[in-house]
C-alpha cells in the first residue's frame, strides 16, 4: 500500500519496482549498511552473516517452489548439496574459475530436481513432498557410491578458494562481500519473478490449478519450472557454501537442514521473497543467540548442562514454528505489513483487508 497522497500519472511509474523517493533512500541506506557492516562487526559475526547469505539464497529458491508455486519441497538441502559437490569437483579437479562453476552447479541442481519434480505432472499436494524426501535420502547414498574420483565419495572434497583476477579470497570480509553480491543479485531475481509472466503463471497454478489450465497455463510445464528455478537457487547456494566452508561432505546436507530451510520460510511467511529473507534472519539470529546463551550457561553450570541446552534450543524453535503455523499462518511478515499499513494511514484506523 502506498502512503496517502502519492499517485502516478503514467504506467511506467506505477509499475516501477521502487516507486517513491523514500523507498529508494531506504534501500540505498540498507545496502550501504550491509557494505559497511564488516568494518563494524567482529570476525565471528561476519562469518555468521556470510553463511546466512548462503542460506538465504537457498531459502529464496524454496520460496519460489513452495510459496509461489505451492509445492512442498523438503529436499532443498539435497539440491544445495548437488550444487556444492558439482562446483567443488569442477573447481578442485579441473581448476574451473567460480564464474564457470556457479552456473554449472546451478544447472546440475536444476536438472536433477527435474527428476524428482517429474511426478508433479501427475500428482499434487503432499505427495510431492514425499518425492523430495526421496531426493534427500538418495543424494548422500548416490554421492558415496559414485566413483570417488568424481566427488570424493563419502570422505568429501576440499574446495579451492575463489580467485578473482588472480587474487584468492581468503579473508572473512572478502568472502562476505563475495556472497553479499550474490545474495543481492538473487534477491533481485526472486523479487522480480512475481512481476513476470512466469511468476504469475506459478501463482495461478498454486491458487487453483484447474482454473489456471482453463486460462491456458500449461500446469505441468510451470510446475517443473518452479522446481527447476528453486533448485537453481539451491545449486548456487551450494557452490557458494563450498567456497565459504572450503570443504564439502554429504554430512552438511541432511534432511535436518532441509527442515530448517522450510522452517525459515514458515516463520518469515511463504507469500513473498521478503518473507524468506525475514525468516532466514530471524531463525539465524534466534539460533545464534540461543546458542550463545547456552554456551554461557554451559561454561557456568558445566558441560552436562550444555548437552541439555542445545536440544532444548531446537525444541523451543520447533514449538515456535508450530505456534506460527497455528496463530500466524502467513508468517511474521504479516505483522510487519500490518504495522506498515497502520503507519501509512495514520491517524485513521486500519480495518484489515
Amino acid at each position, binding site marked *: 500500500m502506498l502512503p496517502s497522497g502519492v499517485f502516478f500519472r503514467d504506467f511506467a511509474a506505477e509499475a516501477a519496482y521502487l516507486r517513491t523517493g523514500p523507498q529508494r533512500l531506504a534501500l540505498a541506506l540498507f545496502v550501504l549498511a550491509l557494505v559497511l557492516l564488516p568494518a563494524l562487526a567482529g570476525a565471528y559475526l561476519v562469518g555468521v552473516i556470510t553463511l546466512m547469505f548462503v542460506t538465504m539464497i537457498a531459502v529464496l529458491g524454496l520460496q519460489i517452489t513452495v510459496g509461489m508455486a*505451492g509445492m*512442498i519441497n*523438503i529436499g532443498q538441502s539435497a539440491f544445495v548439496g548437488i550444487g556444492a559437490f558439482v562446483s567443488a569437483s569442477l573447481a578442485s579437479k579441473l581448476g574451473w574459475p567460480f564464474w564457470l562453476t556457479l552456473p554449472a552447479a546451478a544447472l546440475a541442481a536444476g536438472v536433477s530436481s527435474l*527428476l*524428482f519434480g*517429474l*511426478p508433479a*505432472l*501427475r*500428482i499434487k*499436494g*503432499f*505427495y510431492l*513432498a*514425499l*518425492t523430495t*524426501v*526421496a531426493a534427500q*535420502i*538418495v543424494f548422500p*547414498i*548416490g554421492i*558415496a*557410491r559414485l566413483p570417488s574420483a568424481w566427488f570424493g565419495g563419502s570422505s568429501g572434497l576440499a574446495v579451492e578458494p575463489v580467485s578473482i583476477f588472480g587474487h584468492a579470497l581468503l579473508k572473512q570480509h572478502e568472502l562476505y562481500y563475495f556472497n553479499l553480491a550474490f545474495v543481492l543479485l538473487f534477491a533481485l531475481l526472486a523479487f522480480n519473478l512475481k512481476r513476470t509472466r512466469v511468476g504469475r503463471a506459478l501463482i495461478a497454478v498454486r491458487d487453483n490449478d*484447474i482454473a489456471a489450465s482453463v486460462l491456458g497455463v500449461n500446469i505441468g510445464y510451470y510446475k517443473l519450472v518452479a522446481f527447476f528455478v528453486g533448485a537453481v537457487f539451491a545449486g548456487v547456494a551450494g557452490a557458494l557454501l563450498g567456497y565459504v566452508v572450503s570443504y564439502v561432505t554429504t554430512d552438511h546436507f541432511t*534432511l535436518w537442514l532441509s*527442515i530448517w530451510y*522450510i*522452517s525459515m520460510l*514458515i516463520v518469515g511467511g511463504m507469500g513473498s521473497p521478503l518473507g524468506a529473507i525475514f525468516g532466514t534472519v530471524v531463525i539465524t539470529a534466534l539460533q545464534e543467540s540461543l546458542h550463545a546463551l547456552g554456551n554461557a550457561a554451559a561454561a557456568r553450570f558445566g558441560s552436562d548442562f550444555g*548437552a*541439555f541446552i*542445545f*536440544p*532444548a*534450543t*531446537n*525444541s*523451543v*524453535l*520447533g*514449538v515456535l*514454528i*508450530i505456534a506460527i*503455523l*497455528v496463530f500466524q*499462518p502467513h508468517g511474521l511478515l504479516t505483522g510487519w505489513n500490518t504495522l506498515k499499513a497502520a503507519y501509512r494511514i495514520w491517524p485513521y484506523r486500519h480495518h484489515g483487508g
Partner: protein
Amino acid sequence: MNSFLQALASGTLTGLLYGLIALSFVVIYRAARIVNLAQGEVLMAGAFTIWMMTLAAGLPTLLGSGLALLAAALIGLVIERLVFRPLIGRPTTTIVLASVALIIVLRGASQMVFGPETRPFPQVLPAGAFKLGPLHLNLALTIGAVLTLVVTEALHRFFMNTKAGLRLSAVAEDHMTALSMGISVRRSAAIAWALGASLSALAAAIYLSGAALDVSVAGIGLRALPVALLGGMESVRGATLAGVLVGVGESLASTYLDRHTSGAMSQVFPFLVMIALMLIRPQGLFGWKVIERV
C-alpha cells in the same frame, strides 16, 4: 535356489515390519487426513517410553511394554490436541509443514530428556533364530510378522465393518462433509492418533527388541513411507501387502544387485519404487482415486 528362498523369507519378515509402520501412517491418514511425516519420531518416542517402563522402571518386560503402548497412545493424544487440532480445516500444506516442525520438537525433546547416548533396548520378543526347512528365520521378526497380520485384519474389520470405523473413513474423505453429517472430526483425529502412536510403539518393540536405542531410530519412519504410498494411503490391507512387496524387493536387491552397486541398491530401492509409483499410479495399489469436480 536356497539363497533365493532365504531372501524371499527374510524379505517378507522385514517387509511386514515396514508394513506395520506403514499402518501407523495409514491409520492417521485414514481417520484424520493428516500426513504425519514425523511418524518415525513418534516411533522413537514410543521406543523411549518402552525403555522407561521396562529397563528404567524395572517392570517385567511384557507388562512394561504393554503399559508403554498405552502411554504411547497418550503421547499421540497430546500431539493431536496441541499440534493438529488447531489445524483442522486448514490446507494440507499447512498440516504437512506442522508435521515437519513436529520432527524438530520431538527430536529436540527426546534428546533433552534422554541425552545423545545410545542405550540398550529391552529384549521384548525372544532373541535368536529358528530353522524352517532350509530357511533360517529371525524369531523376533517372525512373532512380529504374525502380530502385524493379526493387527492388519483387526484394523481392516474395524474400518470396514464397525460404525466407529466408518465414521473415521468419512473424515478421511472430507472434513467438511463429515462435520455436516454430524461426525466429530476432533474425536476421529484423537482416536486416529492414539491408535497410530500405539502401533508405532508396537513396531518399535519388534524393530528394536534386544538392539540399541538412540535418536537415529527415527530414520525408519521415512523408509516406511514409500510402503504406505505403494499400498495406498487409505488402505489397511494394502499397507501390509506393500510392506511385503517392498521388503522382498529390497532383500532381493541386496542379495543380487548390491554386489554391483557396493550396497546402494537395497537402500535406494524403496524410493525408486516410490518415484515410479508417483508417475504410474499416484493413488497406490489400493488407495482411493480422487476425482475432482469443478
